[in-house]
């Protein structure tokens, strides 16, 4: 891992136990995120995005119910590299919320309803810094955090209960909790999906500003390309547990090569199409495959409009670098690229 990389994940594989065997759910994920950089992780439900993030945080069911291989390297407080995959639960406890933090999708159910908000923020600080309950420093820091995430009247809010706050405010509290120990890496699992669009914009703004200030790396999981365009520097598209396209936001969003990515982008409602005859919302027919019965060859071929029998259902494609920083997983990308050039 380089000096300016905050997290380096290499060949991450996750498998769940079903009966006597293990069903692989996530295959060979490799990515790095640098300081101040945001990597968006995009895919449909069931593509393995959440599993990947939970695996890095070791929040999945314990072995032997799950099996994780590969490595996920972050830096500890002194700058030395540590591999999360290899760590035991006791060590992970010191990493979670400290070096790597996570925020989730549903702010209402993600906060304990019987504890005050201020106590829940302070809890994160207290246990990493071994402060006692009476220590005022944790509470002072919690107050400072509430101000940082833009909550009005923070002194009053410290003693509020979660159900007394709105959805947007609760998500801000979640962010405050996550940032309490100034982590290197923030994993955001669809944090804006459950919020109104206006609140969504505020939260994204907040995250961007906080990132500028403390230079943390953000892994932003979403299925919404609009959000990707707003906040991400690079994009990683996942399908059936594998990365199928990876590159900078401009590369992937303006000229996607992989048929799946093209399909996803076509499904985004666009203002220009409104009222036009061809303004039909593109969809990708079919469903995400069941991990225990994957299709032969390319996992996407049953739903791909460009698949060719004999090639796409036989050969499992590998991740190829097609231009600087842009990788994808498709055996036909060259032909499809020339077709596109021709069509233009």
């Amino acid at each position, binding site marked *: 891992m380089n000096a300016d990389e905050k997290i380096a994940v290499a060949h991450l594989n996750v498998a769940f136990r079903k009966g006597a065997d293990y069903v692989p759910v996530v295959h060979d994920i490799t990515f790095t995120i640098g300081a101040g950089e945001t990597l968006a992780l995009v895919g449909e439900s069931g593509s393995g995005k959440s599993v990947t993030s939970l695996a890095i945080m070791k929040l999945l069911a314990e072995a032997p119910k799950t099996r994780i291989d590969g490595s996920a390297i972050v830096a500890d407080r002194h700058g030395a590299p540590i591999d999360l995959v290899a760590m035991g639960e006791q060590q992970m406890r010191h990493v979670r919320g400290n070096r790597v933090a996570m925020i989730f999708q549903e702010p209402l159910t*993600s906060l304990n309803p019987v504890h005050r908000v201020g106590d829940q923020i302070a809890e994160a600080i207290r246990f990493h810094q071994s402060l006692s309950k009476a220590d005022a420093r944790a509470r002072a820091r919690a107050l400072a955090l509430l101000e940082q995430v833009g909550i009005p009247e923070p002194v009053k809010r410290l003693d509020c209960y979660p159900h007394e706050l709105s959805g947007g405010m609760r998500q801000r509290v979640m962010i405050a909790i996550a940032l309490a120990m100034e982590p290197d890496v923030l994993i955001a699992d669809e944090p804006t999906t459950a919020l109104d669009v206006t609140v969504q914009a505020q939260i994204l703004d907040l995250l961007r500003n906080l990132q500028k200030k403390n230079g943390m790396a953000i892994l932003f999981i979403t299925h919404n390309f609009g959000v990707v365009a707003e906040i991400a520097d690079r994009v990683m598209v996942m399908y059936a547990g594998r990365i199928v396209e990876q590159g900078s936001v401009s590369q992937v969003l303006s000229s996607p090569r992989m048929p799946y990515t093209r399909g996803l982008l076509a499904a985004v409602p666009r203002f220009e199409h409104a009222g036009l005859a061809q303004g039909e919302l593109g969809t990708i027919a079919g469903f995400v495959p069941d991990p225990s019965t994957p299709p032969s060859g390319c996992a996407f071929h049953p739903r791909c409009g460009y698949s060719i029998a004999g090639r796409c259902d036989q050969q499992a494609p590998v991740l190829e670098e097609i231009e600087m920083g842009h990788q994808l997983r498709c055996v036909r990308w060259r032909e499809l690229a020339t077709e596109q050039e021709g069509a233009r």
Partner: protein
Amino acid sequence: MPNYILNRLGQSAVVLVLVSLIGFMVLNLAPGGPMSQFALNPGMSQAELDRIAEQLGLKRPLLVQYIDWFSHLFVGDWGHSFRDGRPVLSVIAGHLPATLLLMGTSTLLSIVIGTWVGVLGAVRRYSVFDTLATVGAMVALSIPTFWFGLVAIFFFSLHLGWLPAGNMYTIGDQSLGDYAIHLVLPVLVLALVNVAIWSRYMRSATLDVIDQDFVRTARAKGVPYRRVLTHHVIRNALLPMITLAGLQIPTILGGALVTETVFTWPGMGRLFLDSLGYSDYPVIMGILMFSAVLVLLGNLLADLLIGVADPRVRLA
């Protein structure tokens, strides 16, 4: 919170009135009704019986009788025992401490053990411990308490001679140790069923909580697992248990009655049975009403406790 309290108080008041109605109906079902003390005496002529009935106000319309009876209950005049003429309330009060000691100790023990077994079973779902605990709880629920008491007496008292076979103390020796050793068997026997019930409900409540998002958040914060369990999981799982505890009071009272029978424990249950034998209807009715009021108070207390413990209720 004030609305909540008023609402609960109002409901309890309604139930209290209904309880008294039921009680009054039962009272009049007794053979000979409120006249039974005299009606069963063959020496009395019908004219004398009528005169006494008139004196006792039994010729008045039932509604009037009911109101009269209920208002007496309200001010503490619960009638007098047929056996020794003492006021019913003081007779009951005399026997109450023994029952409370038995019930209290046993309930405390059940809650502690039941919580521990239930939570552990939930955390290690489907493990050997959990399966044994679940099956064990179901069997324990099915064992008749009085039979279990008999078997326990046979084994620990008659066979092994470790513990006394009944009573609350030995005459002559009323030291703390003597009380304690007499308390052991009855408390354990009474606790058996309660531990089973409590552990099953605790297990299910814990399972409900453990899957919730905020538990995941707590772990993601880096909070030690032990604290996640105590402060987050158990703290929330105990909330429905408070309501349960209130609903369990009638069962525990009934169990106490059974246990006092087998262990000749000088409590309210024993008094109830003795009074049944003597047809001492005032005391019987008194205990019936008393236990109902205890249950109502207990449920009210539980509801108030929930208001304190769960901020969602308090600030609704």
